[in-house]
């Protein structure tokens, strides 16, 4: 082994040993990806689904306004098991805003009569826009009055001896033709790179600061620099430890995503079916269970490698410039926003990968991950993204190495 490699390996081994004995790094490297990811994937989705299904299974409190001489429609509404009719009160608007009432429906006093005379009489539904439970009640009222209208029309047609298809010449049906992994890609394609890129950054952040600014602050850097080891070997040794941490975080996050994503899908499926069965409506769970392409997911983890190199090198450069750990934190903290922005941009609907966007760091990897998890492999995009990311990473590493050779940076006071 050449002396340079031996020195790099010596620095790497020592730094890795020290890093693995640091609680902060262990938390960001192991605990966050193995605990936070499943918690986010499973806990969050399960709680959401549970809340929605619970809200749907509950009877909605609804108030009828008007319909004074219309006992038939009132009786039909009261017979709907999903609705609970509450006594009429002029303060219905306040009650809906205060969430003590889910929705109200306004009818003409002679609604029943108008219907039999084929005279137009409009229905108005009052609800709380954006509130889940009020929305469910309004939808149920909407569905009820469509059915009620349909039945009235059918009755009129049959009384006059006309065919039922006169008012309803055709039905409309929607059928998903996208395979499950495309559906999964569209659903999770944005969030997966967001989590992976973010964890890759935080995985690199703490060791990068500890190994440079931390060492400066503790006064050990001077000792290390006084040894007969080329500065670049010291930088590479430290760099590879930061990279190891970033990649371990990504790999652990990847594995826990691969495990928890199907698990949460299975749990959601079970819950939706269960809720549908108890509600007595069988058609709720006929949709496709979303999946992600496992190979695409693994390739997208591979695409993160140059991004991890870029993060490790940039964080190392920023941290070596800082005088103290705290100063390094104040530089690295806002950088999280810089990292998040392109991944959020990649989540925006309609943002698709093209050759120009392939050259924008982080955004390119986020977009290609979105494609990859839905099973789309575009070799040109992959090559351009991997190549350009490698160039950025190499430039950042060269910059960090140069900084490490400058007296004014190392002995900055």
């Amino acid at each position, binding site marked *: 082994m050449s*002396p340079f490699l031996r*020195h790099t390996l*010596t*620095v790497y081994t*020592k730094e890795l*040993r*020290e890093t693995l*004995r*640091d609680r902060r790094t262990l938390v960001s490297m192991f605990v966050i990806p193995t605990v936070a990811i499943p918690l986010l994937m499973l806990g969050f989705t399960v709680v959401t689904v549970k809340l929605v299904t619970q809200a749907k299974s509950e009877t909605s409190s609804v108030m009828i306004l008007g319909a004074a001489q219309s006992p038939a429609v009132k009786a039909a509404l009261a017979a709907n098991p999903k609705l609970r009719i509450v006594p009429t009160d002029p303060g219905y608007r306040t009650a809906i805003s205060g969430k003590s009432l889910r929705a109200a429906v306004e009818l003409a006093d002679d609604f029943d009569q108008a219907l039999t005379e084929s005279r137009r009489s409009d229905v108005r539904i009052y609800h709380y826009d954006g509130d889940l439970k009020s929305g469910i009640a309004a939808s149920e009222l909407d569905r009820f009055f469509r059915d009620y209208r349909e039945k009235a029309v059918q009755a009129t047609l049959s009384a006059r001896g006309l065919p039922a298809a006169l008012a309803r010449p055709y039905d409309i049906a929607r059928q998903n033709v996208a395979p499950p992994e495309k559906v999964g890609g569209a659903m999770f394609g944005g969030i997966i790179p967001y989590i992976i890129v973010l964890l890759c950054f935080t995985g690199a952040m703490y060791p990068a600061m500890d190994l440079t600014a931390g060492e400066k602050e*503790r*006064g*050990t850097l*001077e*000792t*290390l*620099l*006084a*040894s*007969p*080891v*080329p500065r670049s070997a010291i930088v590479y040794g430290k760099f590879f430890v930061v990279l190891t941490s970033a990649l371990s975080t990504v790999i652990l996050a990847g594995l826990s995503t691969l495990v928890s994503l199907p698990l949460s899908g299975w749990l959601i499926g079970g819950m939706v079916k269960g809720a549908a069965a108890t509600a007595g409506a069988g058609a709720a769970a006929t949709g496709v269970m979303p999946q992600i392409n496992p190979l695409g997911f693994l390739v997208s983890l591979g695409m993160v490698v140059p991004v991890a190199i870029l993060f490790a090198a940039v964080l190392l450069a920023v941290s070596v410039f800082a005088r103290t750990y705290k100063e390094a934190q104040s530089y690295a903290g806002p950088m999280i926003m810089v990292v998040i922005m392109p991944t959020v941009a990649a989540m925006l609907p309609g943002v698709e990968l093209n050759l120009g966007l392939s050259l924008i760091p982080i955004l390119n990897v986020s977009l290609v991950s979105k494609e990859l998890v839905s099973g789309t492999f575009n070799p040109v995009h992959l090559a351009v993204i991997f190549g350009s990311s490698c160039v950025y990473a190499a430039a950042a590493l060269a910059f960090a190495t140069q900084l490490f050779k400058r*007296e*004014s940076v*190392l*002995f900055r006071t």
Partner: protein
Amino acid sequence: MISVHSLTKVFQDRKRGPIRAVDAVSFTCQPGRIYGLLGANGAGKTTVMRLLATLLRPTAGSATVAGYSVTDSPDAVRAHVGFLAASTALYARLTARETLAYFGTLQGMDAGAIAARTDTLARELGMTDFLDRRVGTFSTGMKQKISIARTLIHDPSVIILDEPTLGLDVMAARAILRFVRDCRDRGKTVIYSTHVMPEVERLCDRVGIIHGGRLLAEGTLAELRDRTGKADLEDAFVSVIGAEEEEAA
């Protein structure tokens, strides 16, 4: 041996402009001798030592350490020098033995040589009991012993010690001084910076008084006393510094 000729270091400061931290300093330190660099805080002692340890590059002048030029062969200089920086710290999450092994490996030593040298230094410095404990739990005195052992792991011929007794209690400081004397007796070239006068009197063969980056006076303790007409070293030091400050005024 250390040989310094017109060594100069100028730092660029954005607000204050160029600062001559070390200004044309020349001196020689022979093997088997301790050269004391005496000066107040900010006098330039640490910069001289960093220049000799090749952590900084001189702006002008030259120096050879153990026969190697600090500007032309910094790696060779570092391989033959043991440098203990002022208020240096250690890796808290490594044990004492791991710390010594790390610096030994960086010096190109093999595992057997490191183990043997660690045993010798542990015996000489009285640190056998805590070799396998993590450094973070140590007292200041214990840490300083490890730091000195770390400095000498590769048995360098030249030893540069920047205020090695700073912040130590009497017993720990005495142990360090005894060890430095032993190093001299074994023929090492030692350069020792301090602003503690009794240490200089008990330890140093030659003394250089540095102030404002310049070496104002140099010689044996007897020569300095003769030159200033002061029997007490502190008085002699103040006399040298005072004359300079009066001239400046």
